[in-house]
């Protein structure tokens, strides 16, 4: 396909195709842009890639990607050490951090259980997770895996590990999204929203009345 290009150029085009969703055409376009329009950007990219792939590892506690031995969230003294939130990907950690709703620490599975693909406890680092449950003073495991069949299975397995060590496990709520109108919501989500309904807390004065 890319015959006719010089060897170096061809190598570059092929290398870029390792990215998801990037085929020959997109790779060519990227290469021409970098070489023609933005040499400085190309050098920054090359350096960032080289350094990143050499230095970034998984955090030894939570498996978040970081160039330190422990990521900043794990090493922070201000985080609540009694709560551990289990998520599927580093992006989930960032999303939760932006919501500012959680003050504890995290554990990143880097995926979810998927028996048909052979993804089991070892791939998700469950041994490390169990070690943390055992050794640290964790009071609650918050399961923030995705709301899919695989995510539910993953949550169940981790809850079972937590139960073994007498640690409470909770699952994030799911149902109607903010601004959601019921008639446009699929029936599965609605039925979960209904079965997971909760009492409306009245303000104190009303409650006493």
């Amino acid at each position: 396909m890319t015959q006719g290009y010089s060897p170096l150029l061809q190598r570059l085009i092929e290398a870029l195709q390792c990215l998801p969703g990037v085929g020959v055409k997109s790779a060519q376009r990227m290469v021409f842009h970098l070489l023609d329009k933005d040499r400085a950007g190309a050098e920054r990219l090359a350096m960032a890639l080289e350094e990143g792939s050499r230095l970034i590892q998984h955090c030894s506690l939570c498996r978040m990607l970081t160039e330190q031995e422990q990521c900043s969230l794990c090493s922070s003294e201000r985080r609540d050490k009694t709560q551990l939130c289990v998520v599927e990907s580093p992006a989930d950690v960032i999303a939760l951090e932006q919501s500012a709703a959680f003050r504890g620490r995290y554990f990143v599975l880097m995926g979810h259980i998927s028996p048909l693909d052979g993804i089991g406890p070892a791939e998700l680092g469950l041994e490390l997770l169990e070690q943390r449950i055992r050794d640290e003073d964790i009071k609650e495991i918050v399961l923030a895996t995705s709301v899919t069949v695989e995510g539910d299975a993953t949550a169940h397995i981790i809850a079972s590990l937590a139960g073994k060590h007498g640690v409470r496990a909770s699952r994030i709520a799911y149902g109607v999204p903010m601004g959601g109108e019921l008639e446009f919501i699929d029936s599965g989500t609605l039925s979960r929203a209904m079965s997971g309904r909760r009492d409306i807390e009245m303000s104190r004065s009303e409650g006493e009345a």
Partner: protein
Amino acid sequence: MTERESVQLEDAFLLHQRAYRNTSQIIECLTRDHGLVALVAQGSRRPKGGQRAILQPFLPLRISWIRRGELGRMIQVEPRAPAAELDGRTLLAGFYLNELVIRLLARGDANAAAYSCYSRALVELEAGISTAASVRLFEYRFLEALGYGLNLNDEVETDEPIRADARYRFEPEVGARYVEGDTSEGDVFWGRELISLRDEDLGDEASLRAARRLLARALQPYLGDRPLRTRAVLKDLVAAGVEL
């Protein structure tokens, strides 16, 4: 060129899915009248208007598609009934069922018996009487639906009915052969154990264990040397101390 097939709202279950491109999925479905069907679900993973909530395993679906050759294109999908409410243990059993179907059902085998076997197993798993027994019965009935049914009625050589108090060696793809003496090898079973599987009566622990041993042998020739991934993962989970 193969003929264009266009199917409207056929009953189906999604067995497996993998991400495809940025916003699409390739889904593997068990359909009622067309057997295993692999489809591209375009844009199904888009955050707005995607069908990810519906494209889940164990949810009875109706799917429309068109295809030429192996890989088709999903046109429409809607839920047919609420999803089987599986939790933890039964969920993992469900994954096992899915892998068995994908591995054993030949592509192009429009096997309605296999479909009803699968949906029946989901109902039984949801009812939650005994996960292990439901899985064994599924294996037994599914082999039968595929045309590999076990002969647990008669001894293979003499054609005499299986006797409860005799012992038999089970040979995959052949049947039960009478054995003399007191052997306790892995492939030797009491007649009563064969009978309780045949009669689909796996209420007690002993016949359940025997059925497990027997069906593992019966499935072996069709699985070949590629072991089931779900089985390995389940084993790892048990080793990790997860209660299943």
